[in-house]
């Protein structure tokens, strides 16, 4: 027994040290020589190669560095002059002539020419880079009669040059040596330090830690106010929020909605909520993909799917899964950009009405069995939905937990399986699921998003192999329409159809949340519109205009909104006791073994 007190002291000692360590993180220095914008991000940079972008951080970094031919407009993401001043089509839209700015230099001092654009597009086509190749119709060629002119020749009419194609232009004099590599090797090119036309170039990457972009001295636009942008990776959201509150970083991106109460109560922090570039989707499986695919056949019945849609309280999901930082979902295209979003008219809306859903199912013959779960009259199967849920998608798990209760009200049982991304793909691949909750993300142009529900995408982009000939026809039709208003009408018709037929349910359009210290940084340019992204997602204008706040008050007020002291004490005490018990037990075992 006489050994115990010493161990106890050790444990208490560790506890005290932990307690002392907690308030140690304090405000950092303010005025350094180079102006550095410090950005906290939760996703690591997986690649700096614009041909293999994957994570959100990859896109941020590429967008800051590179320019597209035409760029997305600040307000509505419409095509605006960038490297190219304009693109003019001929009469039948098979030939587009793009004129470029003169005197643009790459960050290494080489002159930029139309040849670089042609090189990049040809590289994308030849290497079949799937993310980008969709912009080019079969047999597209490019000609560069002089340094500032590109002629885009398509065999069929196309409006893609004005989409605009979301392809970052690479320098031919650097990338030509990689052009003949295998696709895998090409996509593995490290590209650090990079050569770009944008306001910054990537100069340093410490994977899993941080990465730094440095001002491009040859940038063709206005000179950025910051000399460097340093991204700091935070694998823990709480740590990122604390760093922001302590002033260790200036901006935090992709903040979880759960942290809003703390951030919004801090007067030095401004929170920016915008319509995220992804949304939460509930997809149904119609079968057809995977050998073991045996989805619940009742889901083929539109009545059942409609009843499910009626039983889901989307506002409840917004409030409880996203703490209010989202809007209820309707169709495939979220509110950005506005012109492609389909605002479902009142009389076409599927209302939230569990009672009506019950009536609907009763009338269709799906009667409740002894255990209160409905039975399919055609097959005799109980209505039990096996529902994998992507655990890494923000809000997906709470939404799934809510769905269990919502569908219980209408006599449908839901078994949820929260799994990681890899497992989601294998479920999808095997077709071994009835419905799942995952996310969708796309580009401003609606074509890609609409394509995902086409019947020919079964096994490619389609979630559950839904097939509807009318829908296919509408999507194919909108692709060929050049006139924006005419196209809008067809796009909305397709969206209305896919909303009414319920092949999937858009549960929520979550907000993307960014937060910055208004005492350290100011003058962002949100894109698109006032509620847009601060850290570039569509164009890099914001990184040029952003500047240090004038009166940068050095006192980062440490208004602690964290756990009260006794909460910490209880936690540390608990850990201490547990450790103590553990050590004691281990000691005992050792004694006995010896």
């Amino acid at each position, binding site marked *: *027994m006489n050994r115990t007190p010493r161990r106890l002291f050790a444990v208490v000692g560790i506890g005290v040290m932990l307690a002392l360590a907690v308030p140690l993180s304090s405000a950092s220095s303010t005025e350094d020589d180079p102006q550095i914008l410090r950005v906290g991000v939760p996703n690591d940079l997986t690649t700096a190669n614009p041909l293999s972008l994957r994570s959100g951080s990859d896109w941020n970094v590429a967008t800051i560095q590179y320019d597209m031919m035409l760029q997305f407009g600040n307000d509505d993401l419409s095509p605006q002059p960038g490297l190219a001043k304009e693109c003019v089509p001929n009469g039948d839209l098979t030939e587009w002539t793009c004129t470029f700015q003169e005197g643009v230099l790459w960050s290494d001092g080489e002159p930029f020419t139309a040849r670089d654009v042609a090189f990049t597009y040809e590289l994308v086509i030849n290497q079949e880079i799937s993310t980008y190749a969709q912009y080019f119709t079969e047999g597209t060629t490019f000609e560069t009669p002089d340094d500032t002119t590109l002629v885009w020749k398509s065999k069929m009419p196309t409006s893609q040059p004005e989409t605009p194609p979301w392809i970052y232009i690479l320098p031919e004099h650097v990338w030509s040596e990689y052009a003949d590599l295998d696709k895998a090797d090409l996509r593995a090119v490290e590209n650090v330090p990079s050569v770009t036309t944008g306001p910054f170039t990537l100069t340093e990457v410490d994977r899993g830690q941080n990465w730094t972009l440095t001002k491009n001295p040859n940038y063709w636009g206005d000179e950025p106010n910051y000399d460097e942008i340093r991204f700091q990776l935070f694998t823990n*959201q*709480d740590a990122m*929020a*604390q760093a922001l509150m302590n002033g260790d970083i200036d901006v935090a991106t992709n903040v*979880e909605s*759960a*942290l809003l*109460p*703390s951030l919004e109560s801090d007067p030095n922090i401004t929170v920016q909520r915008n319509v995220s570039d992804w949304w939460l989707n509930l997809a149904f499986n119609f079968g057809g993909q995977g050998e073991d695919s045996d989805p619940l056949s009742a889901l083929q019945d539109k009545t059942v799917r409609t009843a499910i849609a009626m039983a889901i*309280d989307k506002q*409840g999901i917004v*409030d*409880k899964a996203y*703490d209010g930082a989202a809007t209820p979902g309707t169709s495939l295209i979220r509110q950005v950009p506005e012109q492609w979003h389909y605002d479902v008219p009142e009389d076409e809306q599927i209302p939230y009405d569990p009672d009506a859903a019950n009536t609907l199912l009763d009338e269709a013959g799906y009667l409740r069995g002894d255990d209160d779960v409905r039975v399919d009259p055609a097959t005799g199967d109980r209505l039990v939905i096996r529902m994998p849920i992507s*655990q890494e998608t923000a809000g997906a*798990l*709470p939404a799934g*937990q*809510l*769905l*269990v*209760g*919502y569908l*219980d*009200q209408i006599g449908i049982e839901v078994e*949820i*399986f*929260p*799994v*990681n991304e890899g*497992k989601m793909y294998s479920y999808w691949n095997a077709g071994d699921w009835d419905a799942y909750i995952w996310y969708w993300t796309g580009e401003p142009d609606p074509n890609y998003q609409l394509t995902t529900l086409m019947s020919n995408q079964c096994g490619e982009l389609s979630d559950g192999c839904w097939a509807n000939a009318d829908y296919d026809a509408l999507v194919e039709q909108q692709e060929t329409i050049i006139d924006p208003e005419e196209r809008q009408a067809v796009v909305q018709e397709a969206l209305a159809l896919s909303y009414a037929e319920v092949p999937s349910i858009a549960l929520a359009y979550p907000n993307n949340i960014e937060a910055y210290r208004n005492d350290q940084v100011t003058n962002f340019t949100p894109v698109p519109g006032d509620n847009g992204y601060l850290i570039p997602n569509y164009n890099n204008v914001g990184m040029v205009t952003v500047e240090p706040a004038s009166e940068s008050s050095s006192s980062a007020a440490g208004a602690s*909104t*964290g*756990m*009260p002291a006794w*909460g910490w004490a*209880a*936690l540390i005490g*608990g850990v201490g*006791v*547990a450790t103590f*018990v*553990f050590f*004691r*037990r281990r000691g*005992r*075992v050792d004694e*006995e*073994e010896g």
Partner: protein
Amino acid sequence: MTTTDTAVTTLTVSPRRLVWQRRLDALTRSWVLYRHNRQGIVGLGFMLFFIALALAAPLLVSPEDIEPATAQGQPNHSPYAGYPLGTDNFGRSVLDLVIVGSRISLLVGVTATVVAVSLGATIGLVSGYYGGTKIDVGLNAITNWFLVIPWLILAIVLSSILGASVWIIIVVIGVTSWAQPARLIRAQALSVRARPYVERARVLGCSDRAILSRHILPNVAPVIFANAILTVAVAILTETTLSILGLGDATAISWGVIIEQAFSAGAMTNGYWWWMVPPGIAIVCVTLSFTMCGYALDEVLNPKLRGR
């Protein structure tokens, strides 16, 4: 009942009955010793309380109150009337969650222990009985291998490959924590094996199996039992650890899962102490109670430890 029957039972006691009588006596003696062990009684009290809580949970908490869709409380609220421990992000009472969580936590703790200890006991017994032979060397090597592997990493790898469900967590904990008991039981079996009556049994022609099950197992059983009680505490902590790391079954409410969900809902930063502290205290109390019982049993059953 005839007179002859009565005569037989009073005069000669059947061997089986004798054995049971003796075991009962031993148990009573142990209980008397245990009763005087304050640590043991406190631990037992707590343990019974939590077991009763787990069994009574369905009576105390209605399913609607812990169903995210139907919970009535205000989300993320500190303790208020009707919600003595506050609410979580779905507006569920944290008190209800902690009560319901006891079921999964104890279920996993006890079942995983059964898996671990039966695995450990079998391997330990066989290895001890055949001490020094090739069987022993082989089994010992396996045991050592599992002892050396960092259990947490093994558990993380296993649960991420196999997926997250309560039963898989049980298997994972079982597989990663049998080696310690196996070691202990092997040592005990080695010493029992050397006793004269085992030799006598062998001379009388008992098979290995009979000796193991009739003579060695009963003598090792107390050690196995005491060890099992201690293993429950470790299993509950392991389940908590895995859940907090996000490797648990998020759909089954256990104390670890409650803490994990509190973490991911920003409870640390937002200061939702009412959501994190109660399940933590529950874990500490339960593991402590099982550990205290285990120590007390150890002292009762192991004369060497008595009086320290």
